[in-house]
């Protein structure tokens, strides 16, 4: 097999699929090479949180733009991806914590954004009636929510295909090399070549950056989620808590998803993770602290997904600093699901227009390279 195309995307997670979709909207038929199946890794197994709240300041323009897309996601992918936007709170137990959250709101406002606000305890208990007593208030965004990740990945895939993208499962890229007229990709299914290559290989992305001489400190880790049996509806919002690793929400099917970036032990080579129940014990304690009525509820399953983390917990997005025709988007540090529709658009603009209107300087791959900056 030796196929030549305009754009090859490595990785059939949401970043790759979204990029293919946005390219398709502009008439470019990209080829996505995915070593497993689309959505097999982080994109299909994440918590589906659509959170703008409490993000790194640098991510705010992107997250706000992404939120606009999620609101009308059907327009992009012909499917509602089970999006529910009932809001998210980050609870404070003490006045000191609330002050810290207030400072956060001020910083966000200083950037010209209004989506985060402080609510008092009365409003908080109206929104989250089953929350344990004694909380003093919360950081709140009424427009946050969640979607079903595997449904979203499926919808993005179908739409990308409808717009002309070709998605190849079971194709593992082994090496990337410059050739006369672009790039040559060695795979387990033969050689592919293209003028442009997009590196959306998630937790595996650094190996391609390294092949191009711009290795970055990406660490693969395995955040864990737990899901409970179905419960009668008791919670509309997603709940986090200042000072705790907690992400807590009830899905429309009644199950409760409990996250908070508690890590499993990861064997990256074999792509196997071992759930660490001693760590999840802390997670369960946090849940019973904030929602005592959950004590007798059964955990039905736990799982971990493999995600790439950067030291500063914000991604790498942009052109390669070393090689023309290469683009990166990885290292989303466990909060890339929400960003995926906008990241695909940004990459399509970089490829086709050479620039984007969104401020992506903070995500430059060179930021880890002290000698160059």
């Amino acid at each position: 097999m030796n196929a030549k195309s305009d754009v090859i995307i490595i990785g059939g997670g949401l970043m790759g699929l979204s990029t293919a979709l946005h390219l398709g909207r502009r008439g470019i038929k990209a080829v996505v090479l995915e070593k497993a199946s689309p959505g097999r890794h982080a994109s299909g197994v994440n918590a589906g949180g659509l959170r703008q709240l409490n993000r790194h300041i640098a991510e705010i323009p992107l997250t706000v733009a992404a939120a606009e897309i999620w609101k009308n996601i059907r327009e992009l992918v012909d499917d509602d991806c089970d999006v529910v936007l009932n809001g998210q709170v980050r609870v404070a137990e003490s006045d000191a914590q609330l002050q810290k959250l207030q400072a956060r709101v001020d910083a966000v406002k200083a950037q010209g954004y209004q989506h985060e606000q402080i609510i008092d305890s009365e409003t908080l208990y109206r929104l989250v009636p089953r929350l344990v007593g004694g909380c003093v208030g919360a950081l709140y965004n009424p427009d946050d929510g969640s979607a079903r990740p595997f449904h979203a990945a499926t919808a993005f895939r179908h739409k990308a295909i409808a717009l002309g993208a070709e998605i190849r499962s079971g194709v593992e890229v082994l090496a990337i090399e410059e050739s006369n007229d672009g790039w040559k990709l060695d795979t387990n299914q033969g050689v592919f070549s293209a003028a442009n290559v997009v590196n959306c290989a998630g937790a595996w992305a650094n190996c391609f950056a390294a092949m191009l001489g711009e290795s970055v400190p990406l660490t693969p880790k395995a955040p864990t989620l737990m899901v409970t049996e179905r419960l009668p509806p008791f919670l509309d919002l997603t709940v986090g808590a200042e000072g705790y690793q907690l992400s807590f929400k009830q899905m429309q099917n009644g199950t409760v998803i409990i996250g908070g970036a508690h890590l499993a032990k990861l064997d990256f080579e074999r792509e196997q993770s071992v759930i660490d129940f001693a760590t999840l014990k802390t997670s369960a304690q946090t849940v019973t602290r904030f929602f005592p009525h959950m004590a007798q509820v059964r955990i039905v399953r736990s799982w971990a997904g493999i995600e790439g983390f950067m030291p500063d917990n914000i991604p790498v997005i942009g052109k390669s600093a070393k090689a023309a025709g290469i683009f990166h988007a990885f290292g989303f540090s466990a909060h890339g699901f929400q960003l995926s529709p906008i990241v695909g658009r940004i990459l399509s603009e970089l490829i086709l227009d050479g620039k984007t209107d969104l401020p992506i300087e903070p995500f430059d791959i060179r930021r880890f390279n002290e000698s160059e900056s």
Partner: protein
Amino acid sequence: MPVFRRLEEADIRWVEIQIDGQTTQAREGDSVAAALLAAGLRSCRTSPISGAPRAPFCMMGVCYECLVEVDGIPNRQSCQITVQEGMQIRRQIGTAKGYR
């Protein structure tokens, strides 16, 4: 009419339990699911999705059809729990329907 009956055996010891608030007898050592069937009940819960009635299916802990409320705690596997004197058992009828 009950679907199951007890074999007549010597030295049966009985314990008193309550099913949906009604006092009844079960045999010492019975699983809760067996006690429900022996009491003539044909279903123990309704499916939270369609509302259809369900009853114990495997009796060995693998199907999770036998979920009932035991002493105030819902969703317990009744085929894996042994009856105790004074145990309060409730069938889970009509709870939590209408999920997507």
